């Protein structure tokens, strides 16, 4: 194996961008910061591609198995014998794949932002935050230690927080960033406790050792972890479920998804990068990272992953059909697609053909990153042009934004699973895996797939077809640059190219559950039904939205209950607000504060007041009358005498 420590540079270059721009940006790089950050990231991207090439084609494969290489490892914090946080780099198929995805999408977003964010007075800060995010995300990917992944997990959380709240004078953005942070934080506690449990039983934090110890059936660690139980569930399952909760929070799985739609308050490129392509799939990545433990040692936990994924996919798809804010539609679509990836993992088994779900999930992650980033960037171009997120302000834009229109269409086709676009291949694999292992999930997935194409084309037709609405963009009609110029169109075109062709990559060659090459099998017969369903969705959407008409309203009125519920996102936000406001605030925090102020502090004060009170009460003893003094004297004497002569001898 060659010396590959240069991989450390991949995350460190964006970090350098963050530090340079964060500290000096405002003063010295007011206008050039975008270029600097992009340049640094470009180097990272090239390094990542180089690494991928080297790993997959040169040194990664030994004896037909892709190796898990650890080119770099430092002990960062030693907890106890054997248990320590090591800062290391792990190189294996999924991390290399993710390196490429993250650097590439990030680079696209960097370039795109050069146009999109131009003229913003916090331009350097924006790029600094992007740098921080990219650093954290890359660090997360290459983590060799479960605690290391947690550290970067938190860091991506905070970068996401900073970027969502980028437009800090908008109260809705502030609320959204708080919500995102707190919800994911809540999930992270689950992750943390999961880490505690896993590390306790495996007595290590290192991924390799941990996986090895918890998957070898004869190891003591595994036996103990399975033997110990709490509420009838084994400690190992608890640990994995809790880790999964962390992943679910970050990946916006039901019911922890509520932050994702709100997170769209951030700048659109940020949504493309963080809340569509990279960070939100961290949960999937985490489950994939621990996949051997899930599938070999705790199938129960894995099936939970599957069901949660399926439910999220369906719910999100339903909600997406009713939303009118284009970014929110995309957000729900993201959630739905991540649900796909999750349940693909959930239905997978370890090793060989049975591990198809794993490969499919990673494949979908890969393709989704490309086409979803494309969708967001396209949406960004639209928003940039029209200064609104609402569908009702849009229509007929294909004449004004031709490139955007084409790329957007490609992305829509890709996500709907129309061959030969990228989404078709990955989705087909997922459905196949689900069909083989869990029929319930398969049907859910199939329905979702139909819904997906419906809402995507609903979006597409509403934006680019129908009547133009002069009121909304009259002022922009004569704007010359229109689509935002080269820097904004270049990423769109590149991504569209990816969305169209990425499906032909033989993914199973590179990534599989046991890291042994999996032969690609294409089931033409099997893919008929999903494709047909997808096309039906498209046709319905065309019928309803291509021309201005009242069919949508009618349809909505027809299924009023379901529509209303979906429109209000099934009232999940309201439930959360009820729990936080009513229960946590009013039933816990307020009484606690009251208790502290009145009971605990009151007791302390009462001690003081009581002392003063007694002091006031007994003052009459000091009456000023000398004869009473003498009486006291004598009484004192006599009582002492009685006490010591008769009582206390």
């Amino acid at each position, binding site marked *: 194996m060659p010396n590959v420590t240069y991989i450390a540079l991949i995350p460190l270059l964006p970090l350098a961008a963050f530090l340079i721009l964060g500290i000096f940006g405002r003063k010295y790089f007011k206008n050039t910061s975008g270029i600097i950050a992009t340049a640094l990231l470009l180097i990272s991207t090239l390094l990542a591609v180089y690494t991928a090439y080297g790993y997959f084609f040169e040194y990664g494969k030994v004896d037909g198995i892709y190796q898990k290489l650890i080119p770099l490892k430092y002990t960062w914090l030693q907890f106890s014998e054997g248990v320590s946080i090591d800062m290391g780099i792990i190189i294996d198929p999924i991390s290399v794949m993710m390196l490429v995805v993250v650097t590439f999408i990030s680079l696209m977003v960097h370039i795109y932002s050069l146009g999109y964010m131009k003229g913003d007075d916090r331009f350097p800060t924006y790029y600094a935050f992007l740098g921080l995010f990219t650093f954290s995300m890359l660090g997360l990917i290459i983590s060799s230690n479960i605690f290391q992944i947690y550290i970067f997990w938190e860091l991506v959380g905070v970068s996401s927080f900073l970027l969502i709240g980028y437009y800090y004078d908008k109260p809705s953005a502030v609320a959204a960033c708080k919500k995102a942070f707190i919800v994911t934080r809540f999930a992270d506690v689950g992750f943390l406790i999961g880490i505690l449990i896993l590390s306790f039983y495996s007595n290590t934090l290192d991924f390799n050792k941990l996986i090895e110890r918890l998957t070898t059936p004869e190891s003591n660690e595994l036996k103990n972890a399975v033997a110990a139980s709490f509420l009838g569930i084994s400690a190992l399952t608890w640990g994995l479920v809790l880790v999964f909760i962390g992943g679910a929070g970050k990946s916006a799985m039901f019911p922890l998804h509520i932050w994702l739609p709100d997170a769209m308050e951030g700048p659109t490129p940020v949504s493309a990068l963080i809340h569509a392509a990279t960070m939100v799939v961290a949960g999937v990545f985490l489950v994939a990272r621990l996949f051997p433990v899930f599938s070999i040692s705790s199938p129960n936990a894995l099936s939970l992953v599957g069901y949660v994924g399926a439910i999220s996919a369906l719910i999100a798809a339903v909600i997406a059909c009713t939303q009118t804010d284009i970014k929110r539609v995309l957000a729900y679509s993201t959630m739905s697609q991540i649900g796909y990836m999750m349940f693909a993992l959930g239905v997978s088994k370890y090793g060989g053909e049975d591990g198809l779900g794993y490969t499919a999930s990673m494949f979908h992650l890969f393709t989704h990153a490309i086409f979803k980033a494309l969708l967001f960037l396209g949406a960004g171009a639209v928003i940039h042009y029209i200064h609104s997120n609402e569908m009702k302000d849009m229509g007929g834009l294909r004449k004004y934004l031709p490139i955007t229109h084409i790329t957007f269409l490609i992305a829509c086709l890709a996500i709907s699973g129309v061959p030969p676009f990228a989404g078709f291949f990955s989705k087909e694999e997922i459905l196949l895996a689900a069909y083989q292992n869990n029929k319930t999930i398969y049907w859910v997935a199939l329905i979702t797939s139909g819904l997906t194409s419906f809402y995507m084309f609903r979006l597409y037709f509403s934006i680019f077809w129908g009547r133009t609405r002069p009121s909304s963009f009259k002022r922009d009609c004569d704007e010359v640059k229109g689509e935002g110029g080269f820097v904004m169109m270049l990423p769109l075109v590149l991504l569209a190219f990816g969305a169209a062709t990425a499906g032909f990559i033989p993914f199973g060659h590179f990534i599989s559950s046991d890291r042994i090459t999996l032969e690609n099998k294409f089931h033409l017969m099997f893919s008929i039904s999903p494709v047909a369903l997808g096309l039906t969705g498209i046709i319905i959407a065309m019928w309803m939205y291509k021309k201005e008409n009242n069919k949508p309203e009618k349809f909505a009125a027809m299924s009023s209950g379901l529509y209303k519920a979906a429109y209000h996102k099934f009232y999940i936000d309201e439930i959360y607000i009820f729990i936080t406001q009513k229960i946590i605030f009013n039933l816990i925090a307020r009484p606690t504060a009251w208790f502290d102020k009145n009971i605990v502090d009151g007791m302390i004060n009462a001690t003081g007041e009581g002392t*003063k009170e007694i*002091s006031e009460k*007994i*003052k009459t003893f*000091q009456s*000023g009358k*000398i004869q009473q*003094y003498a009486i006291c004297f004598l*009484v004192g004497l006599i009582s002492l005498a009685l006490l010591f002569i008769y009582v206390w001898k």
Partner: protein
Amino acid sequence: MIETLTLMKPELIITFIIFLLLFIKIGKGVKSETMLLLIQVLLLLNFITGFIFNSEGNLFDGMYQTTAMMALQKNILSLGIYLISLLFASWFKKSEHMLEFFILMLSALLGMFFLISSGNLLMFFLALELATIPVAAMANFDLDKKVSSEAAMKMILSSAFSSGILLFGISLIYGATGTISFTELPLYLDGSPLQILAFLFLFTAFAFKLSIVPFHLWTADVYEGSPIAVTSFLSVISKGAVTFIFISTLYKVFQPINEVWYNMIMILSIASMVIGNLFALRQQNIKRFIAFSSIAQVGFILVGISSNSAQGISSVVYFILIYIFSNLAAFGVASAISSQTGKENINDYKGLYQTNPFLSLVLVLALFSLAGIPPTAGFFGKLFLLTAGASKGSYLFITIAALNMIISLYYYLRIVRAVFMEKNEQPIEKIEIDLSAKFALTICAAGIVLIGLLSWTYDYIQSLS
């Protein structure tokens, strides 16, 4: 004869000074400034000679005894008297009867010296009376003030009453054992009820002088009504002397019945601390305030006494030494303020730091020392008392004592708060302090800071006990 002279050196010197002052009084009037200076010099000399030519031994068949420890105790009192003569100089100068005052005070001091050296109950009684009666007269020194005469009346009547009780006790002791000599008494003490009763009578007389609850009621009134010089004499010198004799009587004479007095002291100590503190909480007059706080301090002294060990003696003597500095500093400041403005109320002290930083700092230092806050000496004094007391191993007792420190801190901080923090429309104006008073205050402040930090002071006392 020579032996008598050297053994009784402190008493003889004081007697000499008294007579000298008497003759001066008889002769032609001397300017009071010169007179005061002379007295100050004499008292300083008295203090200095206290360190030299000390010898140990008995006189008059053991009626009079002296040891190095006693010499030290007397010297501590001499120091106190010297400081008093410096501190209240401006008050002395104003008074027409300064000489009489000193004659009375020195007579009382003479009584205390004999008290410390007394070797039998007769000597003890005589000395105690000598130490008490002049003070009553001194208490009346502000002849025109109603409170002054009321204080003197309360003092003389209650002390006469307590002498009656004391004498009754002594008569019972005599009846029960047939001896009044301190050296012989322990041989006859067996803890029979009559003896305990007799001891109690004697004990209450001590308790009265030390103002231990519930025999303390006269204290506040007398302290408040008397001139500040007298109050400070009472609270510092007189209390110190009685404490010294009290501890040596308990440890030497009543050692056979130590079980009895240990419990008694424990109860009374807790009572004194609690009651003293509770009353001190709401006092407004600074003298009355210090009176109650000194009751609480006596409670602490009792903690040290309860240890019944050499450490007990040394920690008590050490504490008294510190107490003299701290209390005199506080009284000195109070007197400087009251002699110029007539203000004795704590509320009047608001904003004092802005106008009189020196006085404020000394006052606060003294209060911290009284409260037992490091690095002042009071901290060490109190801590050693508690440590000595803790050697008996009664956690409850020590805990109560320690918790009482908090209450006492509260009221000491009241003054600190007034001095530093609170606003006042009419703060006390800048006060001209007499040079000698300033000198004495500086000595006090230095003592407060240094006695604790310089550990040899304690070790010296320890080596004597």
